[in-house]
């Protein structure tokens, strides 16, 4: 039960973080683009619940939930998204290239499918080192059409690597319904091509995701090789900051919203927490996010050094060529 409470708190944190980002974009206060995971929070928190701090996590473009579930500090996330030097990556990575080394978070990824072999490589590292941890890879239904998906899952199964592949099947890749670009509707069906076990789970239900992820993670930790978890989920917002969602109906959206991960968790907590306790948790989460944002706003803007320094690691003598 304390587990559900944890899931709930994290879910709220993600939800409000994303809503704040949405608001900032709508006000033109953020540059670049963003991919919100509102509606998909249960996958992030559920999977995270099955992990230990040592495990590696590789994410994709829609990664704020994965980051926050992993324990990222919202203030430093805001700083990163605002392009500030105190962001996790000095403001250089931004939303789509955001790693947090001390959390073993090996990056969100701007290239669809780009993180899948990287997570696989982390799995090979673990295997060679004989460590206990596992590597977890989040990606979408769309990414499962990339060659990297095939090459990676094949290597992982051939080499029996400790990797949990988590496909967040949110029905669409941008505007493209998965069923339009794949004859089968389940991404998990592809696991069979590699002799890899897989499971499909209700991706709106954090508890179910957590259970399914744990079941597969246990198997992986026991040395039985990789597995694929497909979470059926839905993103409420558009794909990125500019998306009129012309490719889907509001009926479909409404149907998914009825199974909202936040509401579902609140239902699961209903015997344990009163409505006012829930309300307190919610408003506490809102102000935590708001505080984080405010503290990020106070952080300094980048200077010339922040832009040019450190193209190469440990190579004092290197001077970048170019404008400066």
């Amino acid at each position: 039960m304390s587990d559900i409470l944890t899931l709930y708190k994290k879910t709220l944190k993600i939800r409000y973080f994303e809503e704040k980002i949405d608001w900032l974009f709508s006000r033109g206060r953020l540059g670049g683009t963003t991919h919100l995971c509102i509606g998909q929070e249960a996958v992030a928190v559920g999977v995270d619940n099955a992990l230990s701090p040592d495990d590696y996590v590789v994410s994709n473009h829609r990664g704020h939930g994965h980051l926050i579930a992993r324990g990222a500090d919202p203030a430093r996330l805001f700083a990163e998204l605002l392009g500030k030097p105190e962001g996790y990556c000095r403001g250089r990575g931004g939303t789509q290239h955001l790693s947090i080394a001390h959390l073993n978070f090996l990056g969100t990824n701007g290239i669809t499918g780009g993180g899948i072999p990287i997570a696989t490589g982390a799995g090979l590292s673990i295997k060679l080192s004989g460590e206990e941890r596992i590597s977890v890879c989040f990606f979408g239904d769309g990414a499962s059409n990339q060659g990297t998906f095939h090459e990676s899952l094949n290597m992982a199964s051939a080499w029996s690597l400790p990797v949990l592949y988590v496909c967040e099947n949110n029905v669409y890749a941008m505007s493209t319904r998965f069923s339009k670009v794949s004859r089968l509707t389940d991404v998990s069906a592809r696991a069979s091509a590699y002799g890899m076990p897989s499971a499909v789970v209700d991706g709106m239900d954090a508890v179910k995701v957590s259970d399914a992820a744990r079941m597969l993670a246990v198997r992986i930790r026991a040395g039985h090789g990789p597995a694929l978890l497909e979470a059926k989920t839905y993103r409420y917002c558009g794909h990125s900051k500019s998306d009129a969602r012309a490719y889907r109906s509001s009926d479909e959206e409404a149907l998914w919203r009825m199974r909202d991960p936040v509401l579902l968790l609140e239902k699961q907590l209903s015997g344990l927490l009163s409505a006012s306790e829930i309300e307190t948790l919610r408003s506490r989460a809102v102000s935590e996010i708001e505080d984080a944002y405010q503290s990020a706003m106070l952080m300094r803007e980048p200077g010339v050094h922040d832009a040019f320094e450190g193209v190469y690691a440990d190579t004092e003598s290197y001077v970048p060529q170019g404008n400066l």
Partner: protein
Amino acid sequence: MPTQNLTYRKAIYSALDKVLSESEKTVFLGEDITEYGGAFGVSADLHTRHPSRVIATPISEGGFMGVAVGMAMTGYRVVVEMMFMDFMTLAFDQIVNHAVNVHYMYGGQLTCPVVIRTPAGGYRGYGPSHSKAMENMLFGVPGLKIMAPSTVQDAYGCLLTAVADNNPVLFVEHKLLYSLEEAVDLAEIQPVPFGKARIVRQGSDVTVVSHSYGAHLAQQAVMELEDEGIDAELIDLRSLKPLDIETIVESVTKTGSLVCVEEGNVTGGIGSEITAIVAERCLEYLDGRIIRVGRGDTPIPASLASEGLILPDKDTIKAAIRKALRRL
């Protein structure tokens, strides 16, 4: 059609509509180019106007580039949209080892008329995987042609030429150009030939060569330098490959100095090639200096402020021009 205000985006749309209308053997492939209308809104309603020949692909850049090559070898003329230029790297094998070789390596038996349209460039805070101007990476590849128009009129005229060509063509658009507007009469626009640059401004002091969005930055710089009494000649390449060497050489022969401006990084850039050609061909006419302007040799940070420091702007170009003229 009378003269109308048209965006660069709409000019490309119009050229695509025209080529798709003119031949049943022209197709258009890419991600999210149907209902979504394309990530940058270029394809708009083309899929309703040409239902079976505007085809939304899965996210498989290497694969659908190969599909384009296969279609081109079997009688189709194919336009491919790569959503961001950076993603083209996933298709480099099909471009570099297949598409560009088809005509030559098969001894002239087959052709590969594929146009790869792609939005390049930064200044938008998209970060390292979504912001590169990478035409320099493919610049040396034999068998490829490259166009990178900077105006609405040229966008239309160049795309007509690119699609009509029997060879693979890289067609570089720029994210910041899509909303550029000009008054044009499409019916009057002639196809822009390969290898023909456009002289944007005639001048006698210094030659400035650029392309794509860089040409706009260069133009701002050149205009502002008029006040300092600098009379620059500005050349907008439009076609990068083949390159209009004659126009460049002729200009440098006249002005005696050269500034190359591009958004891609300086090292290994288009400017290096232009400089090399000029150095080989008109060394004796150079009384000023040669300066290359481009992206600093770093990845492109997501931070808009940092990105602004790394990418060239009007002021870096102005400084380079002064330097070329030794007016520092």
